[in-house]
């Protein structure tokens, strides 16, 4: 057998082979690329991150008054909106941008999966919104509300946001332009929030909205997150988790099969 010279070995190592790209490595690279823009825009991000909890504080005082139950629902709803719907909206906008400016073409010609790209964008936005949500929880504690950040809360955050982010990504890719994507995502956000006990407790919603709510991942995401925040890990919580896992698998299947980023 011919000996491999040092030059050949080095040359061979400099030849890319997609087989060397693990899923974890692809996800990590994609995530770091998503986070790269923060280096240049961190002051704005920081200010924005502080504004959300301060706004939550304002609403807490103005709307809930001394009613602790209402206050809990309102604050947890606010955190859910921030973590799930803002992430969906951001993911839709990012994918629409990538479609419009040909950035998706770049990723489509690399050996990376679109599921990992959706997950990376989703995670990027979660990392962006998580500090403000945690700060909201801290402020809520100061007002006597009993929220907790535990393992399940941190587990639910990605689980709850992924299925809606997948919807956002699909809208971003399928919409013909940025404005249309924004409008569709806005309508979906409104529907998801209205059709189910996200900001308003179930007993105050019309029955038909509760029925529709049972079909939407946002309902289970909000309920699971509310359970985690209040530390009540009962059967309902486990059912929420199970539904979220199912929705996430459906979202992955949907992204893999129906989101056409490669073939125009």
């Amino acid at each position, binding site marked *: 057998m011919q000996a491999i010279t040092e030059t050949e070995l080095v040359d061979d190592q400099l030849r890319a082979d997609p087989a060397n790209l693990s899923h974890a490595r692809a996800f990590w*690279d994609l995530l770091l690329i998503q986070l790269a823009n923060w*280096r240049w825009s961190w002051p704005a991000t920081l200010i924005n991150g502080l504004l959300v909890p301060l706004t939550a504080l304002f609403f807490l005082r103005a709307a809930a008054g001394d009613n602790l139950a209402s206050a809990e629902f309102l604050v947890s709803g606010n955190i859910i909106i921030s973590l799930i719907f803002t992430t969906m909206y951001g993911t839709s906008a990012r994918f629409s941008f990538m479609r419009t400016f*040909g950035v998706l073409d770049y990723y489509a010609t690399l*050996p990376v999966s679109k599921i990992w790209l959706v997950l990376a964008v989703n995670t990027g936005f979660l990392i962006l919104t998580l500090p403000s949500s945690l700060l909201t929880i801290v402020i809520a504690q100061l007002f006597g509300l009993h929220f907790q950040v535990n393992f399940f809360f941190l587990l639910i955050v990605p689980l709850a946001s992924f299925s809606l982010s997948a919807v956002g990504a699909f809208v971003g890719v399928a919409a013909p332009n940025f404005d249309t994507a924004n409008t569709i995502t806005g309508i979906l956000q409104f529907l998801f929030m209205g059709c189910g006990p996200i900001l308003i407790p179930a007993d105050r919603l019309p029955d038909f909205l509760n029925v529709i709510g049972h079909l939407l991942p946002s309902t289970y995401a909000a309920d699971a997150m509310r359970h985690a925040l209040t530390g009540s890990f009962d059967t309902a919580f486990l059912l929420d988790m199970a539904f979220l896992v199912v929705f996430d698998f459906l979202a992955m299947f949907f992204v893999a099969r129906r989101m056409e980023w*490669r073939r125009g």
Partner: protein
Amino acid sequence: MISTNHEPINPPDQAPGQAVYHIERLTKIYGRGRALQTAKPANQDINLDIRPGEIFGLLGSNGAGKSTLIRQMVNLVAPTSGKILLMGQDIARYPGAVTRYVAYMPQKPHALLDLTAEEAIYYTGHMRGLSRPAAQQEARRLVEEWGLEDVRKKAVRHLSGGQHRLVSLAATLTGNLPVLILDEPTNELDPAFRKQVWEQIVQVNQKRGTTIILVTHNVQEAERVIQRVAVMSQARIVGLGRVSELKAQMEQEVSLELFLRPDVAAAAEMALEDMPGARRLQPYQWSVSVERTGGEEAIHRILSLVKLERLEDFRVHTASLEDVYMRLTGHAISHEESEDKSLNVKR
């Protein structure tokens, strides 16, 4: 570090002599359902083989179908009919062949704007499957080779158009994939940068045997680099062959190129408009094809008709690739036009 083997490097699963790309009866019509019956094809019945280790040029005006063809070759657009084999693999069935073998630089690269120049090259290499040290080494080497040392830590979005394009080119080269597809690689570059790009393209081809497919409007400069060329017009390939072969078809002719003085151009253009073999290249620039035999007299006659005082300059040359292009398509290639501006808008 780099192999100096001038022979084309065959990827492990490519049979010797096999075309890198084999394109067969490829047609693309944008739209669905009824639109397919009435829409004009963007590509029609394209047959093409691209050989290992060659620098292949794709020439054509705006809307000729070049970018659609390129995007089909990298699987960004699905053909309406026909097939594309890459290294013998049908890319519709095995899309992974494209990501494994082809590095593609689009006409307007907008990815990775928030990364620094060096990071953009590093991440592209790493995501193509280079190890971390290899991707870092490649990024450092390419930054130096492309003269990007001063901007290596600057965000790509803050670079000039030319620097941005050089970063994109360098990122395209990382990973040493066996096929490079470059869509207008010298757009937005000044003459010095353009010279650098053409030199690098030749160097990569010669040192590594990389097959390079170029789409360009810059026919004059590309002519020195391109080995084989396909000329596209109205969605079809109207000319295909080695540059020398295509030019040989016009070896019995010479071209008289006239640069008109703008203030008196109208009168000169009146004389040129009805002249056989005369074509307008650009505003105030015309070309007249003249039979080589008896050419001196013909040139004298043309200059007398147009009048020397109406000319800023003139030159006589043998057929260039641009002349071949004009002969095949019936019009000059525009240097300002930009192919398919609505590429990312669904049609």
